[in-house]
């Protein structure tokens, strides 16, 4: 059985849009398989930044001159694009720095106002630290308690455990859409329905989902959805929070300052309409504009085509790695239950050493705890290696990665497979 790419998917044309993919590392062509950490940027996104600064740079929502109007228009157009991309209205989309800031916004603005001593917050053991630590901080301040849904040996969320926690009527369920270590796609729509049935609010961490699959927050019906631009072709420093508009209206501000006010007096202030209420200070205009262009790019290729392409790459990676006796794979074995990444370990070589040796071949993978120390403890490792794919990766690159693993065996193998 050999994996093939759909004939209609023109990966070479896509690659030509990404200047960095022409780079060489140590004399080898770059094989970039660290997309779950951050994606590369197409020429169109880079050009959008230059064009914004060369043509339209001004502050938004205040000036009356041409440039200010253009900048405001570009910023709000980008908001609409990003919102529509996930099936939301622009009024319910707040620009943030990244997923982490989006979750912190909910933790501080919604969490501190709504959580009381003894309230239950349900998280999962496959959360990134960004969906754990903000809740620990809020729990310390409010006296709320954290409970974690475990994952099964197959790397899937233990739905029975979740349901039993839901019977304790939590106030919030905060769960990742796609695990950045296991690759698991969680049934967030079903989780939301069940959580809503017991009156809980639901936050979904979509950092690893929105770049790779079609996401519709209206269909999921969650209350909050957080994601980052830089993992989906946009620059670093721009992300977004979707929240139900009525929640945004009820929530107190996260940060105070310019832009987010309606009226300021000596004693008190009133707030701007949502979402501006949550965007204090001059926002990251240029990167937001480029975020909109990144979304255009993804839509032009088509999210379903991208997902299918990544699934082929993941299938091939799983097929090649599964045949290796000295390698352990983490997460679901079925590529259809995953997004495009594979975490693995050599049985007797530390993943840092694996990544270091692959780097000599120009192959960039990630090694570490991936900001998921709870998963690492569950898997009884301190770190894993991870290859993660995106729309511009090829089957040849997946095979080059697999072949380079032989270099690891050359360095470490002579000690009898230890």
């Amino acid at each position, binding site marked *: 059985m050999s994996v093939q790419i759909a004939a209609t998917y023109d990966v070479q044309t896509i690659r030509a849009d990404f200047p960095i993919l022409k780079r060489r590392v140590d004399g080898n062509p770059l094989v970039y398989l660290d997309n779950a950490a951050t994606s590369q940027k197409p020429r169109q996104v880079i050009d959008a930044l230059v064009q914004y600064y060369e043509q339209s740079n001004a502050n938004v929502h205040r000036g009356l001159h041409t440039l200010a109007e253009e900048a405001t228009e570009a910023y709000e157009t980008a908001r609409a694009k990003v919102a529509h991309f996930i099936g939301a209205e622009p009024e319910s989309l707040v620009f943030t720095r990244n997923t982490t800031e989006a979750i912190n916004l909910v933790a501080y603005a919604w969490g501190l106002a709504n959580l009381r001593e003894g309230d239950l917050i349900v998280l999962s053991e496959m959360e990134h630290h960004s969906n754990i630590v903000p809740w620990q901080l809020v729990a310390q301040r409010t006296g709320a308690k954290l409970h974690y849904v475990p994952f099964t040996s197959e790397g899937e969320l233990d739905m029975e455990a979740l349901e039993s926690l839901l019977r304790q009527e939590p106030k919030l369920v905060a769960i990742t859409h796609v695990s950045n270590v296991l690759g698991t796609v969680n049934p967030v729509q079903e989780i939301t329905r069940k959580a809503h049935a017991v009156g809980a609010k639901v936050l979904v961490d979509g950092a690893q989902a929105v770049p790779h699959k079609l996401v519709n927050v209206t269909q999921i019906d969650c209350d909050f959805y957080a994601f980052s631009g830089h993992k989906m072709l946009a620059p670093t420093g721009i992300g977004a929070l979707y929240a139900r508009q009525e929640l945004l209206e009820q929530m107190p501000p996260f940060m105070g300052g310019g832009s987010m006010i309606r009226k300021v007096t000596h004693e008190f202030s009133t707030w701007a309409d949502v979402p501006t209420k949550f965007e204090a200070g001059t926002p990251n205009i240029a990167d937001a504009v480029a975020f909109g262009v990144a979304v255009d790019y993804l839509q032009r290729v088509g999210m379903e085509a991208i997902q299918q392409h990544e699934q082929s790459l993941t299938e091939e990676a799983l097929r090649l790695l599964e045949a290796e006796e000295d390698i352990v794979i983490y997460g679901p074995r079925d590529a259809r239950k995953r997004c495009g990444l594979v975490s693995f370990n050599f049985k007797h*070589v*530390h*993943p*840092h*050493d694996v990544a*270091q*040796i692959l780097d*000599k*071949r120009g192959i960039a993978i990630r*090694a*570490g*705890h991936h900001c998921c*120390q709870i998963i*690492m403890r569950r898997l009884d490792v*301190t*770190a894993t290696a991870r290859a993660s794919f995106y729309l511009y990766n090829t089957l040849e690159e997946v095979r080059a990665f697999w072949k380079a693993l032989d*270099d690891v065996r*050359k*360095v*470490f193998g002579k*000690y009898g497979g*230890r």
Partner: protein
Amino acid sequence: MVDDELYREIILEHYHHPRYKGALPDANLTAEGINPLCGDELTLYLKTDGDRIVEASFEGRGCSISQASASMLTEALRGLTIEEARQLMERVKAMLTGAPHEPFDEDEDLSALEGVRNYPVRIKCALLAWTTLEEMLEAK
């Protein structure tokens, strides 16, 4: 293709056959080190008699560089006085960070760590055992 400069034979040999690995039940000095960037963990045990280190061992999980460095440390510390251990620590740290230091002879195992200096992200791995020792001696 193989990365000889970093993965010198002696480093791999220490990694695969660590010298004094395991807890030291009658240790009178222990310290824990962690590299939060990569999750490497290390516990260092020393048994001293007066001012002299008579036994040293370590427990931990980590990459070849961090584990080999810890193994070399335990081997090198045995028989040294606390002051000599401190001087050795400063010398290794200087070697790894590119500061002036008295170089190690080629036949000393520790000289194999010199290649790590050219791999900035791995310097912390090699330093872990030594910074753990530093914290232990400072707390003493």
